[in-house]
């Protein structure tokens, strides 16, 4: 006899490996139980009851809140369980706007999926009347709220407060009147939303969706007077494939270049290039601040949700934020400036930039007063996948292609920007070189890696010329707030703070195919990026030949007059209505 604890699920003996709920034990044993409200990264809620199972001797219970016990006998698919689940679906659908064909979650909706799987073809309740429908809130540049499709699973409410500590969304009223809304039903643009999109990422239905800008991109492509230039962010390459049957973490960047060209974009560039550029400017800024001892710790500024959070909540500490634009923000104006020098028929005026981002807040960033007319359309990974499908492109059969020069090459440092800790690691590699003239002895800064729930705050200390430099990396704004408070109270002992608002970083961004059901997806995507970093011929941003050339021919050096004009920005608390 071993001291292993086991239980029985559908007559199969399974081991309990420290899981907190029966649902998790089943999942780890390869038995899927349907659920709407269970999200492994959020607290258990037990709201939707879809995960009911039958326990021998105890009857029907929700498996997402039931602790596993040795010897327990669970049945996940009895006749009784099936009937209850069907009734739950019918009741959820009774008060649901069932206009699936015009819903932007169509095909990705869990309610739709389970209704199909459980054979729900007829709802024995009166359909929602047109005049009963609530107004759709499309005030935000990133997120659309349609409460006619909400099933009250509370995932968005939990995501906003448990990940970001903001709590823009809350339950209002009670009983059959309960609904989810920002305070007093205000439009999303008028509250402290930072556009991270995590609410939409965890939403099982079409209640919270990402604003669709694909039509704007198509309009540009079909306009004969416009030259379209596209840029693709680091973490898109390890997630987009999931929408076409590839595994999470499979790097499909070459296929993405090919798909973008097939869609009709004129020039394809990689945001990884400008991630390298961001590191050049930011590492330079970091070394400068370290030398002068000014405005430390330096806060990274590539996450637009985090920047917005600072502007709203800590306007007195904006001096800590790096003045560097994000990689998206750097590449767009640089392309408009430089592409006409390399390509005939392109002018600053006729170039329109479309960026493919894992992020919903990038849509907001592009509308910032300071960055106006630089990035013209921002699409999320999911929107881009939709364009590929609409164009009839067979993604998995595509032959790989290359990006265009002069911004075609990138380093491993640029690639790992997509994972929490990657920016700090890349910055450290280059800052070390700038300060010492030598490369970091070991380029893998392992303590800064990891994207699971336990790695939302991590630290590393590095010896630079005898000076101990401490780096703090956080993902989620809840962790960021803790770090900022340490700085405010003078307790902070770190000199660089990297913040990504989404748990695990951009690989789990609000614009990515949702990873909310499986904690491993984040790891696999991050691993995809670290693998590319390891295999690239150039791993240091400062060694990227295209970066060296752009500085030599155009920008001169980091923090030059030219780079300040194009690559740096300012921050202020701008009222949202002025941005839209």
């Amino acid at each position, binding site marked *: 006899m071993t001291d292993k604890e086991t239980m029985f699920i559908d007559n199969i003996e399974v081991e309990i490996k420290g899981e907190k709920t029966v649902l998790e034990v089943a999942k780890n044993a390869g038995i899927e139980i349907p659920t709407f409200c269970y999200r492994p990264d959020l607290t258990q809620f037990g709201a939707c009851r879809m995960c009911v199972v039958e326990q021998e001797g105890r009857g029907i219970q929700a498996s997402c809140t039931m602790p596993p016990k040795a010897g327990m006998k669970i049945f996940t698919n009895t006749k009784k369980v099936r009937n209850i689940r069907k009734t739950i679906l019918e009741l959820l659908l009774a008060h649901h706007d069932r206009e699936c064909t015009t819903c932007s979650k169509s095909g990705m909706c869990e309610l739709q999926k389970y209704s199909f799987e459980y054979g729900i073809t007829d709802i024995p309740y009166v359909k929602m009347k047109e005049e009963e429908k609530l107004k759709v809130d499309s005030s935000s540049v990133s997120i659309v709220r349609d409460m006619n499709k909400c099933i009250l699973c509370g995932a968005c409410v939990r995501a906003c*407060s448990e990940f970001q500590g903001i709590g823009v969304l809350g339950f209002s009223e009670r009983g059959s009147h309960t609904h989810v809304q920002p*305070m*007093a039903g205000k439009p999303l643009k008028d509250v402290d939303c930072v556009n991270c999109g995590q609410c939409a990422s965890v939403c099982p239905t079409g209640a919270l969706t990402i604003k669709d800008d694909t039509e704007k991109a198509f309009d540009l492509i079909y306009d004969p007077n416009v030259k379209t230039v596209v840029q693709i962010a680091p973490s898109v390459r390890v997630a987009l494939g999931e929408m076409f049957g590839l595994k999470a973490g499979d790097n499909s960047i070459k296929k993405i270049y090919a798909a973008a060209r097939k869609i009709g974009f004129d020039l394809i560039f990689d945001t990884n290039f400008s991630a390298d550029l961001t590191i050049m400017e930011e590492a330079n800024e970091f070394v400068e601040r370290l030398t002068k001892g000014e405005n430390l710790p330096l806060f990274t500024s590539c996450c637009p949700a985090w920047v917005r959070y600072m502007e709203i909540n800590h306007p007195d500490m904006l001096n800590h934020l790096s003045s560097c634009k994000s990689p998206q923000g750097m590449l767009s104006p640089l392309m408009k400036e430089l592409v006409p020098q390399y390509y005939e028929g392109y002018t600053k005026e006729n170039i329109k930039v479309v960026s493919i981002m894992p992020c919903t807040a990038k849509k907001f960033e592009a509308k910032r007063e300071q960055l106006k007319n630089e990035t013209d359309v921002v699409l999320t990974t999911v929107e881009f996948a939709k364009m590929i499908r609409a164009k009839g492109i067979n993604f998995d059969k595509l032959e790989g292609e290359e990006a265009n020069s002069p911004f075609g090459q990138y380093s491993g440092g640029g690639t790992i920007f997509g994972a929490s800790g990657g920016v700090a690691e890349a910055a450290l590699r280059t800052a070390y070189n700038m300060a010492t003239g030598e490369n970091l002895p070991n380029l893998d800064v392992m303590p800064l890696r990891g994207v699971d729930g336990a790695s939302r705050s991590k630290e590393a200390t590095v010896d630079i010329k005898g000076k101990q430099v401490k780096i703090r990396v956080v993902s989620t704004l809840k962790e960021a707030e803790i770090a900022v408070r340490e700085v405010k109270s003078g307790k902070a002992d770190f000199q660089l703070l990297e913040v990504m608002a989404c748990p695990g970083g951009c690989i789990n961004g609000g614009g990515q195919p949702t990873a909310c059901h499986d904690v491993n997806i984040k790891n696999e995507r991050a691993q995809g990026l670290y693998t590319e970093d390891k295999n690239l011929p150039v791993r240091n941003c400062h060694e990227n030949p295209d970066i060296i050339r752009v500085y030599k021919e155009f920008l001169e050096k980091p923090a030059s007059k030219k780079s300040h004009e194009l690559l740096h920005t300012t921050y202020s608390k701008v009222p949202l209505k002025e941005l839209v």
Partner: protein
Amino acid sequence: MLELKTPSDFEKIDEILKECEYKKTNLITILQKVQAIYRYLPQEAIEYIGNKIDGLSPATVWGVATFYAQFSLEPKGKYEIKVCDGTACHVRGSMPVLEAIKNKLPMEKGKMTTSDGLFSVETVSCLGACSLAPAVVINGKVYPKMTPDAVLIIIDTLMKENE
């Protein structure tokens, strides 16, 4: 309508928050105390409290304020009339009493307070005074065994006091 605009108004809320140690577990007490000052919960107060207490947000405070019937988001009258509509009061004729009050005090549709701000009327589920059914409570004072005629006399008296 009482409005919450000036800094001194927020000072009052600050005092309450301090007294309740800025704890989110004390939220209901805080809201009760604020409502005691304004006779309702002004939107600005809800927003302010949500931003001041760690772990809360305006949306969550709004959620609590709209969950409980004891909180009102619109100003209540100088006289808060509560008509008990628990089972005992209901069978003993609380609805004719309520009808009489509503006829006497016309209010705009959807509002619970008269336009002069003098009276607000609401039903409550059970006051625990079933032996006195039907019961009406006005500003904490219980009026037992009400009839439509009796309740109108009480309202007339209150109106005269305020002329």
